[in-house]
């Protein structure tokens, strides 16, 4: 597969990039999500632990939880149609920078469809039509004025099957920053590659063989390489669509640990079939069923005391 063909090179190209985690065009505001103002982990935990607002007993409790602070992304009454079929029904949810949000639900429930709305991946499906408003930092990303290419640099994606380019480890990570003009010199680019690989927890394993092919790595390493590739363009949000389902338990644990470390630096939304994984990595969980957001709440609540019968049946293994 020639990735260059699939990768939009110029910012004017609205053509999406279905199989690529990163996309073109540097963000104008440059790297900003990270460093100085970063809250301490303990502070984060305190914030998460704060009982603040009681979880609404109604379905779709999203708007009631975590009120009083600005979400990184918010979806308001988002529906998706595939042709005539309404695959996603009026979903409203918020995603926060310091929280990992997990989407769970049986196959076909709309969770991946919803995830793909968040960086307009559904644009790539001709029959798909998206309704509703989705905001990134308050800006409507569904508007025709939104530069999709730029959007996907800000909202990166990691897929179920690791999909490194058939190029060297170095090139896999350097590709995005280079075409986006994020670095002005080779040494700067080297720095970005090293930083990204370190954040992805892969640096120690590959630093002596950066010129080897990315596809020669193990599955777990490939997936971390894809995460490094997503990180390299300095996104604000990382979407993960079942990032561990092709990995063994050890590689899975490493990815989960990585998610934990990345939390706070990037807003993370993850789709998973593995409920234990959702319980392990996330602070907020959304349960989807038949295209509806049935319940959204604190992960600790959802897995010990869900409000909705359908959630209870699903997570306890009584569904269907």
């Amino acid at each position, binding site marked *: 597969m020639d990735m260059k063909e699939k990768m939009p090179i110029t910012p004017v190209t609205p053509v999406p990039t279905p199989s690529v985690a990163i996309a073109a065009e540097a963000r104008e505001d440059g790297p900003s999500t990270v460093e100085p103002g970063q809250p301490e982990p303990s502070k984060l935990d305190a914030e998460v632990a704060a009982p603040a607002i009681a979880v609404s007993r109604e379905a779709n409790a999203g708007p009631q939880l975590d009120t009083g602070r600005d979400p990184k992304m918010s979806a308001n009454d988002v529906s998706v149609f595939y042709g005539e079929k309404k695959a996603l029904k009026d979903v409203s949810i918020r995603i926060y920078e310091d929280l990992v949000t997990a989407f769970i639900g049986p196959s076909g429930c709309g969770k991946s469809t919803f995830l793909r709305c968040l960086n307009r991946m559904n644009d790539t499906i001709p029959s798909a039509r998206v309704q509703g408003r989705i905001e990134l930092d308050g800006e409507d990303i569904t508007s025709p004025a939104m530069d999709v290419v730029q959007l996907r640099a800000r909202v990166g994606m990691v897929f179920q099957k690791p999909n490194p380019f058939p190029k060297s480890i170095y090139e896999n990570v350097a590709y995005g920053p280079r075409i986006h003009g994020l670095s002005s010199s080779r040494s700067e680019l080297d720095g970005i590659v090293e930083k990204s690989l370190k954040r992805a927890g892969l640096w120690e394993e590959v630093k002596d063989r950066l010129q080897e092919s990315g596809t020669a790595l193990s599955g777990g390493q490939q997936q971390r390489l894809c995460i490094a590739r997503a990180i390299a363009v300095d996104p604000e949000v990382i979407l993960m669509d079942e990032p561990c389902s092709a990995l063994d338990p050890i590689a899975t644990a490493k990815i989960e640990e990585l998610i934990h470390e990345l939390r706070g630096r990037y807003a993370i939304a993850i789709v998973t079939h593995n409920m234990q994984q959702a319980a392990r990595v996330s602070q907020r969980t959304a349960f989807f069923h038949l295209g509806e957001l049935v319940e959204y709440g604190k992960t600790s609540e959802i897995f010990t005391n869900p409000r909705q019968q359908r959630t*209870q049946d699903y997570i*306890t293994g009584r569904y269907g």
Partner: protein
Amino acid sequence: MQQASGHTLKAFDEDIERLRALISQMGGLAEHAISEAMRCLVQRDTEGAAQIVQDDKKLDALEIETERRAVQLIALRAPMAGDLRDVVAALKISGVVERIGDYAKNIAKRVPLIESAGRIEPLSLLPEMARLASGMVHDVLDAFVERDAQAALSVCERDEAVDDFYDSIFRALLTHMMENPHNIGQSAHLLFVAKNLERVGDHATNIAEMVYYAATGIHMADRPGKSPRL
């Protein structure tokens, strides 16, 4: 919230049912131990009392069995939500029921120590108090098996009657002791018997709280519409 239907994995249902059955069995034994202990006390049946002490070992063994099965279930089935609350409740309840058995055993151990028959008025109150307390144990364990939060609540309300019994027996025994210092030893034993029964009622109340949480996911103290306790 009701557990609508069985698990997709039938063996999971069987495991949970087995755990419930163990708790029921423990409850039956504890209840029987209390009523037997009271019978032995009233009838001065020292042999029967010795048997109760022996039989308590069965409860201890069942508690260990419950713990083993609960740990195994958590490890192998990774229960969630209502299932998880049920398993944790079973684990805790088994410990409490074992404790209730210990109180019955303690009463039985006092039977040979309470010598002369002599008419003691409080002795006539004790069996009634025991019936109340063991009735609470019986009903609260039924509530657990049925996941019936309302039944658990009504068990709690009955604890007050047990406490009232204790207060009046306490006063009666005190009077009895003051009247005749020869009665002190015997009365002290009976006071402990009453205290044990009062503790059984408290433990049944604790179990009721566990059952309520397991069934609803809400702690009894936080339940909606709860009137403030005096």
